[in-house]
């Protein structure tokens, strides 16, 4: 009976897979993932605003850009392709975060390197300065006349 169970399970899995696959194949355009749409819009600069993303701007331009994003997702574009479409039209300027590759990688790397360098430099200076504060053996002062020191001792005792 076990082999029959196995066949049944295989058939069930195959049927489920086919069902899921056909459902996806039939409706590639019907539903646009709102989360995808929002994430793409949040990565793009609203071109008529000051430092606002397409997701955050109420302007007509941003509304139209969201419309284009929706249309492209509905047509089956992957989010990366939609972003690339806007980069092709507007240049990398449209991306709120510069890409972590090529020349703009510097924007990401330089501040981190500079901060690390600053910490190292500060640590090095602190170590140097704190060493300098250590008491040094004081140089031997001018020799005191034995007669004078004897007199000081006497006056101290007598007082």
């Amino acid at each position: 009976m076990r082999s029959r169970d196995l066949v049944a399970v295989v058939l069930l899995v195959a049927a489920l897979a086919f069902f899921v696959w056909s459902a996806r194949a039939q409706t590639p355009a019907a539903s646009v993932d709102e989360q995808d749409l929002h994430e793409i819009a949040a990565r793009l600069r609203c071109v008529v605003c000051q430092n606002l993303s397409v997701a955050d701007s109420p302007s007509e331009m941003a509304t139209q850009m969201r419309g284009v994003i929706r249309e492209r997702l509905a047509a089956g574009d992957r989010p990366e392709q939609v972003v690339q479409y806007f980069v092709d039209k507007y240049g990398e300027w449209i991306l709120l975060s510069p890409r972590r590759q090529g020349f703009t990688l510097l924007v990401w790397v330089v501040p981190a390197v500079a901060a690390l360098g600053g910490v190292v430099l500060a640590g090095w200076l602190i170590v140097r300065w704190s060493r300098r504060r250590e008491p040094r053996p004081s140089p031997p002062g001018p020799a005191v006349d034995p007669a004078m020191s004897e007199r000081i001792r006497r006056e101290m005792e007598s007082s």
Partner: protein
Amino acid sequence: MKRWLVWLIPLAAVPVLALLAYGFRVNPRDVPSPLVGRPAPAFRLEAYDGPPVALEALRGKVVVVNFWASWCYPACYEEAPALERGWGAYRDRDVVVVGVDIQDKREAGRKFIKDFRLSFPNAPDPAGKVSIDYGVYGVPETFFIDRAGRIRAKHVGAVTDEVFRARVEPLVAEK
């Protein structure tokens, strides 16, 4: 600490100041368009008056695509007569001016065309698809397309007679 090391502190400010000095002189609206030198995106729009305007049908001509809006004051109001004059002067030399009215109300757009007596084809871009396809981020912006259908220049701001002539003349001369 060595004395020369002290100079490092003010010296570190120099590249930052240089970057700021450069950055503040650059016009933030002069973002270079990646479309210059590339084939112009195709479009087909329903004109306010007359037949639909399709870029494909204008292949072989020099096409000036101007993005404008009736609310774009004063730049669009300044350039409208210059565009009309340019169209009048060059239309017999295979030059077509196409106006694309973006983010506008139809009535306001029609009034603008009537007020300036624009005789070149003008069409609204209701969903903004054409303007986004051209990477437009404000009005007015004008694209100069050669006979082969390639974007050769983009002008941001009002087009003057001088700009029109300087951009169109070399493209007309190309065969």
